[in-house]
């Protein structure tokens, strides 16, 4: 059962990663007991399971994901949100109001209007259905302050780090409140704009250098250096 690539080695679509009794994970597929890569990325083993951590991919919604969406359309009883996925997501008026929606009483644009950014969660989504969102959980709702950075969605795990090591370090070093969303958007709320900028710089660096070793140390170093300068 040979494996043809080392851990964290760069592969391109069509590369034969392994032959034999393995399971095909993310960005890979299996044909005749052979596992091939489907995207440009880094090989990653988890026991018998082979993954490729894609260096470029787009967001595919899943139930339970935390996402930031921009309102792009106000309908009669719902809003459409752009969550950086292939399809627009829907947020129902009855979910936002604490009662059923009444067209005579409720004026949706006065609640949320186009260009508003919403922190929300996906409650339903599959092959035949566009994503449905909810904001009925603590912490969710319209974003009223801070800054949003966009990065490649597959690098979100790297921003979080193993057991949250990276994001905890970022929070500690910059003093910002950081919300990492599965669709590749990161919300940063800091006490000063300088602190927010520092966090954004760090996240951009993680996005660019996600496939390199010793990233957490390098990012810590960068932030501490900048902090001394300020």
């Amino acid at each position, binding site marked *: 059962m040979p494996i043809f690539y080392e851990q964290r080695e*760069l592969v391109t*679509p*069509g590369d034969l990663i392994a032959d034999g009794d393995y399971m095909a994970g993310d960005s890979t*597929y299996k044909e005749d007991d052979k596992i091939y890569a489907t*995207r*440009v990325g880094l090989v990653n083993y988890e026991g018998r399971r082979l993954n490729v951590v894609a260096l*470029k991919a*787009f967001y595919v919604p899943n139930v339970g994901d935390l996402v930031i969406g921009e309102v792009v359309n106000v309908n009669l009883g719902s809003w459409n949100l752009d969550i950086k996925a*292939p399809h627009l997501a829907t947020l129902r008026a009855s979910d936002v109001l604490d009662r059923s929606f009444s067209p005579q009483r409720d004026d949706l644009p006065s609640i949320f209007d186009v260009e508003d950014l919403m922190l929300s969660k996906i409650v339903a989504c599959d092959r035949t259905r566009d994503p449905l969102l909810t904001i009925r959980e603590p912490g969710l709702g319209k974003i009223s302050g801070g800054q949003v950075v966009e990065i490649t969605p597959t690098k979100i795990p790297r921003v979080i780090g193993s057991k949250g090591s990276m994001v905890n370090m970022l929070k500690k070093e910059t003093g910002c409140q950081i919300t990492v969303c599965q669709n590749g958007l990161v919300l940063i709320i800091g006490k000063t704009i300088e602190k927010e900028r520092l966090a954004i710089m760090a996240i951009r660096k993680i996005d660019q250098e996600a496939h390199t070793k010793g990233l957490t140390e390098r990012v810590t170093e960068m932030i501490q250096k900048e902090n001394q300068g300020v």
Partner: protein
Amino acid sequence: MTKKPLTLINKKNIRVDGRKLDELRPIKIELNIIGNANGSAYIEQGKNKILAAVYGPKEVHPRHLALPDRALLRCQYHMSPFSVKERKRPAPSRRETEISKVIRECLSPSIFGEYYPRTSIDIYIEVLEADGGTRCSGIIAASLALADAGIPLRDLVAACAAGKVEEHLVLDLNGPEDNKGTDMPIALMPTFNAVTLLQMNGILTTDEFEQALNLAVKGCEQVYTLQKEALKARYINVKEEVEEE
């Protein structure tokens, strides 16, 4: 007017542009050059200069075209008015419509469209300068643009032409050779040795066909290596920079 050579291949088996019979034109590839596209590639193959851009997967417009079980793949091959010696009318010609179709069909087996139902993947290929074999160069660029867009692929699609010019079998025909001789473009997924496009314009005997096919497959394999290098180049550069520090 410059004086044209009487023959395309001289007695030493050297072609008009100085290549050997089984030599590819020099290829230069760049990725991610169109900011608004999800993925893009630019290729220079000899005098060919071609841009490819990929948008998607995204919602299908017009909506009724959406497929319930897989992504809709659309492809547009277009030649710029200034891409050839005499101005080409910008409206899509019969030839461009056909090439769009064959390129779409040669790329579709490489794409996992069934993962993204009710979406569309749009490919645009713009020929900025043409000198023979633009459909092959277009396929090479389009396949890379798809990979650059992060769309899952079974394999990259490599393409290359072989043919017969003045009784010699040659690889990767350029403009003048294409006009005079027999041209046979093929596209290949090298990992599976699967041919996804095979066209021929002219006459070859069965033996010649087989030889030309083998020649073209070898050409595709060379192209494939270059494609992989181009895809990796961006990330390797970052890695090296960081590790030097």
